[in-house]
């Protein structure tokens, strides 16, 4: 379940950055694209990686 959520969050960062193309000012586009990047990175590092680390082989001793 966590993996599915992680995949969706990671992909949604990409969608956000594409949506920035609907704006007209470069400053606004920049802000939205950076937001998209942060969302994708959170999906990878904060959700997906955490899901795998939960059952990591080295935590079992």
């Amino acid at each position, binding site marked *: 379940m966590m993996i599915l959520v992680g995949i969706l969050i990671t992909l949604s960062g*990409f969608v956000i950055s594409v949506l920035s193309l609907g704006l007209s000012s470069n400053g606004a586009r920049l802000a939205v694209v*950076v937001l998209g990047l942060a969302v994708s990175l959170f999906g990878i590092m904060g959700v997906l990686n955490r899901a795998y680390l939960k059952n990591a082989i080295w935590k079992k001793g």
Partner: protein
Amino acid sequence: MKIASKGLLTLCFGALCCLAPLSFAQTPAATPTAAPKAITDADLAGAPVPSADARSKGDPDGALTGTASDIAVTDAKKGATIGDLANQVGQNKIAINFVWTLVTGFLVMFMQAGFAIVETGLCRAKNANHTMMMNFMVYGVGMLAYWLIGFAIQMGGVGAVANLGGTPPLSAEHVITVFGKPFGIFGQNGLFLVHRGTYDVGVMVLFLFQMVFMDTALTIVTGAAAERWKYAAFVISSFLMGAFTYPLFANWAWGGGWLASLGTNFNLGKGYCDFAGSGVVHAVGGITALAVSMMLGPRIGKYERSGKSNAILAHDIVIVLTGCFILAFGWFGFNPGSTLGASGNGNLRIGSIAVNTMLAGMAGSFGAMLYMWMRYGKPDASMSGNGLLAGLVAITAPSGFVNPVGAVIIGTIAGVLVCISVEFIDRVMHVDDPVGAISVHGTNGLWGVLSIGLFADGKSNYGGSWNGVTGSVTGLFYGDNGGQLVAQLIGIVTLVGFVFTLSFVFNLLIDWALGQRVGAKSELEGLDLPEMGALGYPEFELKAEM
């Protein structure tokens, strides 16, 4: 001592005096200007050609070979015409570009050998056969996938590649409309290299060059997943990457896709720019490597229960650094070859691109060596090698658009960045990457893409436009309004958000169907016997870990 230095000064002064006339002699003499005269067919008919008698005596100094008599004529009775001459000039231009692109492609192909020994040397001896075999077979697996479908997806709609004579059969791009603008999604011509007229000399040259790039991306993953990846899973994963993941992003950046059109469609600089593939090749490889190694989990013994990371040492640092040199050599194909020609359309920048490449590599190795030396008290060999590669990865995208000072800055940052990234991925994310591939290719691939938006100096001129937008690629530090930086960042989020997701889903399916990771017993024993059936070094006495 004083006398010696006086003597040296006298010698230097004397040498300068001798050289002075030489420097004057190099000043071009003023030439009388004459009105240009049009060449006619009659002039060509009168062009001196060596006699058959003279040719029959041989041509030891080469003065008689390659003359007007070698121009192909359409009508032997009429002799050479202006039309024949123009055709010959055109063919010579394309021939130069074909040879340039093919030879640089051969150099890139040789990088596979560099990757193979870098990765194998950084792993333990008990996995040597397995690691080498992954690096060896990724060449064939990737090529098969790319020939079957990958090339068509990537380049099937690229349109005219002028440097290679036009490549007219590659003309069908699948396009959707987003915000009222055409978004190229994938190419449609070129399956098996015969589909819809793609059995074409220019297409063949383009295929060879693009194929070796694709294989470079694939071989990055084998390093990060080494010492625990099931061989069968590796084969399927590499096939899917060569057939779909890589070609899709490469289409968007290089094949006429939507990222390249961000300039024409949304006024974002010259659109997403990636001269030789920091993003297309290296970041795609590095990000896929992150997805796979995250899924595989760390090698047994890499982390203690407390989370403390243990160093698992390389078994042969000599071949690691030799491999780094082979890669640096191959990079002279990677970056300068990406002009797809040496003649016409601003292609004489190949000299500048080659110099940028070598400077950034040097700066990267220095950056990493100094960082490690200051932080840990010793200049670490494997990280110096990774620093060289990081500098080369980072300069790959901007190599065609920046000046030498920019190249050195980009390379130095890459050298430091790779060390910090390796530590972060290892100690904070707890993702095990035996060779540092995620940091070298992923992190620095993204840095290379970003650096264009900052350091592109607006001096390059590849036929007067890039990605269909008139003018030169220019970054924020050279007066751009930030549009180029936004285009580069959109490319970065596409890599992190889309390419990662696609790679992750493909590999998740393989994990469910087949399992990605070998059993603990095989891993402890070493993968050579359980996975490959033979040891890499049969005469070594290898100890299994307990």
